[in-house]
C-alpha cells in the first residue's frame, strides 16, 4: 500500500469525521442515550414521582389479622425495593368501607378483611384508579401469606412442615457436555438481552453500507472517478473507501459505548459517589459470575469483535462493488436493499435463536457470512454451539472475504467506469469471469 492509498483513506475519513452532520448526529446520540439511561430522573424532574408512597388502609372486620397483613405487605414491598421503586405505608382504620370510599385519594388503597366459615380470609380491595401490577402483586401475596398463617394456626400445622410442602423441588443440574453446562434460563435471558446488545452493530452495519456506497456513487456521478482511477488502481481505491468507512463505524461504535458509560455513570451517581459499583449492580454481576456468564464473555467478546470487524469488511466490500455498478444514488439505494434485508435477517435470527433451541437450520446459518456475526455469539451464549463453531464461522468469513475481493474487484474495475444502465448484469457477469485485472 503506497502513499496515495493512505492519502485517499485519510481524506475519506477526514471528510466523514469533519462533517457537521457527524458532529450533530453524535450530539443527538449522546444526549438521547444519556437521557434514556436516566429516564427516571428525567420524568421526576418534569413532575413525575416514582418515589410517591401508596397508602394502604386496612379495615379489619374481626379477623384479627391486621398486624400479620401489615408485616407481610411491608416485607414483600421491601424485598422488591432492591430492584424496583415501591414504597407503601400500611395503616388500620376503624371506619366503615363506605365512609372511607367517599374521600378516597388517588394514592390510597382500601383493603377490607373478612372471614367466614368456608374461608379463613376474604378481602375487598378498593381504589380510585387501576392499581399498578407491582403493588397489586404485593397486596395479593401479602393476603395469601396472611391466609396461610391463619390456616396454620387454626389447624396447628408446624411452620416447617408447611414450608416443606410448599417449597419448590430442589434440582441439581448436570450436563455431561462441559461446553453446554449452562443454566437453562440463560437461553431465555440471551434471547432478550443479546439482540439489545447487537442492535448497535446492526445500525452500524447499515451506516457502513450507506457510507461506502454513497461515497463511491458520489465520485462516479461527479465523474471525478476517472481522474482518481487514473492515478490509483481500482483495488487501492476500493480498499481505501473500505478502510476509511470501517474506521469510521468502529469509531462511532466506540463513541456509542462511551455515551452509554457516561449515561450509566450519571444514572448510578458514580460521578459524585466515587467509582464503587452500586450494590444492586454488584449483586447482578455476582449472579452472572455464578452462572458462568462472565467466564463465557471472556472468550466470546474477542471472538465476537473479530466476527464483527470481519463482517463489517464483508458488508463494505459488497456495498462497494454494488455501488460501482450503479450510476446514481437512487440505483444504489435499490441495489443495497438485499444487503439490508440479509443483515436484518441476521438480527432477527439472533433474537429467535432462544425460541428455537437446538434448531439445526439456525446452527447452519450461524456459519453463513453476513449472518454469523449476529447468530454465532448468540448461540454460543445459549450453549447451543462451542468456541470451535465460532472459529469455524470466522474461517468461513475470511474465505468469503478473499473470494469476494478476488472476483469482486474485476466487477469493480469495470463498474466504476460504466455510466450506462444498459445490460448492467451482462457486463457484471462478463467482468466476473474475466481475468483481466
Amino acid at each position, binding site marked *: 500500500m503506497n502513499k*496515495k492509498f493512505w492519502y485517499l483513506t485519510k*481524506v475519506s475519513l477526514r471528510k466523514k469525521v469533519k462533517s457537521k452532520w457527524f458532529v450533530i448526529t453524535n450530539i443527538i446520540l449522546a444526549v438521547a442515550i444519556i437521557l434514556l439511561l436516566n429516564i427516571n430522573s428525567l420524568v421526576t424532574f418534569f413532575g413525575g414521582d416514582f418515589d410517591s408512597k401508596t397508602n394502604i388502609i386496612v379495615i379489619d372486620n374481626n379477623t384479627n389479622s391486621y398486624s400479620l397483613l401489615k408485616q407481610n405487605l411491608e416485607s414483600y414491598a421491601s424485598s422488591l425495593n432492591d430492584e424496583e421503586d415501591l414504597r407503601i405505608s400500611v395503616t388500620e382504620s376503624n371506619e366503615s368501607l363506605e365512609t372511607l370510599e367517599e374521600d378516597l385519594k388517588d394514592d390510597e388503597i382500601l383493603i377490607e378483611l373478612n372471614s367466614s366459615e368456608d374461608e379463613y380470609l376474604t378481602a375487598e380491595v378498593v381504589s380510585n384508579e387501576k392499581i399498578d401490577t407491582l403493588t397489586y402483586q404485593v397486596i395479593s401475596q401479602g393476603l395469601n401469606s396472611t391466609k396461610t398463617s391463619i390456616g396454620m394456626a387454626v389447624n396447628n400445622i408446624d411452620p416447617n412442615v408447611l414450608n416443606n410442602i410448599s417449597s419448590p423441588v430442589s434440582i441439581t443440574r448436570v450436563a455431561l457436555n462441559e461446553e453446554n453446562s449452562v443454566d437453562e434460563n440463560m437461553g431465555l435471558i440471551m434471547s432478550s438481552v443479546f439482540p439489545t446488545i447487537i442492535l448497535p452493530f446492526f445500525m452500524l452495519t447499515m451506516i457502513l453500507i450507506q457510507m461506502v456506497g454513497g461515497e463511491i456513487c458520489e465520485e462516479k456521478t461527479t465523474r471525478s472517478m*476517472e*481522474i482518481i482511477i487514473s492515478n*490509483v488502481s481500482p483495488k487501492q481505491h476500493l480498499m481505501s473507501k473500505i478502510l476509511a468507512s470501517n474506521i469510521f463505524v468502529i469509531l462511532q461504535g466506540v463513541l456509542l459505548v462511551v455515551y452509554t458509560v457516561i449515561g450509566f455513570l450519571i444514572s448510578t451517581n458514580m460521578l459524585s459517589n466515587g467509582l464503587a459499583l452500586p450494590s444492586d449492580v454488584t449483586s447482578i454481576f455476582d449472579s452472572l459470575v455464578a452462572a458462568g456468564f462472565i467466564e463465557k464473555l471472556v472468550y466470546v467478546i474477542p471472538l465476537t469483535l473479530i466476527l464483527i470487524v470481519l463482517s463489517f469488511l464483508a458488508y463494505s466490500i459488497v456495498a462497494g462493488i454494488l455501488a460501482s455498478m450503479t450510476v446514481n444514488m437512487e440505483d444504489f439505494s435499490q441495489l443495497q436493499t438485499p444487503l439490508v434485508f440479509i443483515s436484518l435477517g441476521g438480527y432477527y435470527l439472533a433474537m429467535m435463536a432462544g425460541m428455537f433451541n437446538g434448531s439445526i437450520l439456525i446452527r447452519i446459518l450461524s456459519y453463513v457470512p453476513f449472518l454469523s456475526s449476529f447468530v454465532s455469539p448468540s448461540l454460543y451464549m445459549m450453549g447451543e454451539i462451542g468456541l470451535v463453531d465460532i472459529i469455524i464461522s470466522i474461517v468461513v468469513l475470511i474465505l468469503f472475504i478473499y473470494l469476494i475481493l478476488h472476483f469482486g474487484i474485476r466487477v469493480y474495475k469495470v463498474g466504476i467506469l460504466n455510466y450506462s444502465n444498459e445490460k448492467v448484469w451482462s457486463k457484471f457477469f462478463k467482468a466476473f469471469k474475466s481475468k*483481466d485485472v
Partner: protein
Amino acid sequence: MLEVKHITKYYGNNRAVDNLSFTVKDGEIFGLLGENGAGKTTTFRIIMGLIEASSGEVLLDGKKIDYSLTDEIGFVTEERSLLTKLTVLEQLKFYGVLKGLDEKLLEKDIDKWLEKFEITSYKNRKIKELSKGNQQKIQFISAIINHPKLLILDEPFTGLDPINVKMMKDAIYDLQKEGCSIIFSSHQMEYIEDFCEKLVILVKGHPVVSGDLKTIKNEFGIKNVMLRGEDLPLDEIEKVKGVISVSKVKGEIEVKVESRDIAPKIFSLVKNSNITKYDVVEPTLNEIFIAKVGGIHE
C-alpha cells in the same frame, strides 16, 4: 513523446476503436476529432491506462503507460470531474497529491495558478458554489498542476467566455513551450484549426482522416472561391464543369469547386464584372469534418 500503435478495442462484439495509430511529439498539439460515440473517450481511457486495449499499445517516452507514469499525465474530461462538496483548495490539493505532489508544498503552486486565472477569491469556496466557467478553470488547473508531460484536453473550453478562453489558450501555449505533448478534442472546429498541426478524425472508431492539417486540407481537393461584386454571372458560373455549388455566405458569393484548377475558369467569367473580391481559400476543418463524417453516414 506519445506513441499510439495500432490500438483496437472491443466491447463484446462492438468495435469501439479500430486500428488507431498516431504520434504526438514533445511540444506538439494533436487534434482527436469525431462525432459523439466515435471512440474518443475510449481512446483517452486507453491512453490513461484506465482500460486495456484489445490489441496494440500506447507508449509515453518509449514506456508502456501504467500507474508509475500517470503522475506525468494531465486529463481534462469532457464532463466536469470535480468533487462538488470540496472547497477549491481541498479539490486542487486532492488531485495534486494523487498526482504524486507533496501536500505541504502544493499550496504555493495552487495560489500561483489561482492568481493566474483570477480566481484567488474563490480559494476557500465550495466547488458547487462556483459558476460553470470557474469550475472549468479549476478542472484545468487540477490537470496541469503537476506540469504534465502529456496533457489530454477533452472539450476544455466548455462554459468559458472569450476572455477566459484566451486565458486558457495562453496557458496551453505555455505548456506547449515547456515541451508538453497535448491531445485536444473539441466539437468546435475553429479551436482545432487554431491549435493543432496534426489531427485524426474518427468515425465509428476508425481513423478516416489522419495527418498534418495543411496536407489534409490540400488533399481534400475541394476549394472555395469567394467573390464580392456587382452583376456576377452566377448562372454561367454554376454551369462550369467542376463547380459543386454556388451560394451566398455573409454578403459574399461562395463557389465550391472540385479542385484549384477550376478557379481560373471562374476568374475568366467574372473578370469583366465589377468585382471587389476574388479569393481562393482552403476548405474549413468543419467542411472536411462534415464531408468525411457525414459522407460515411450517407
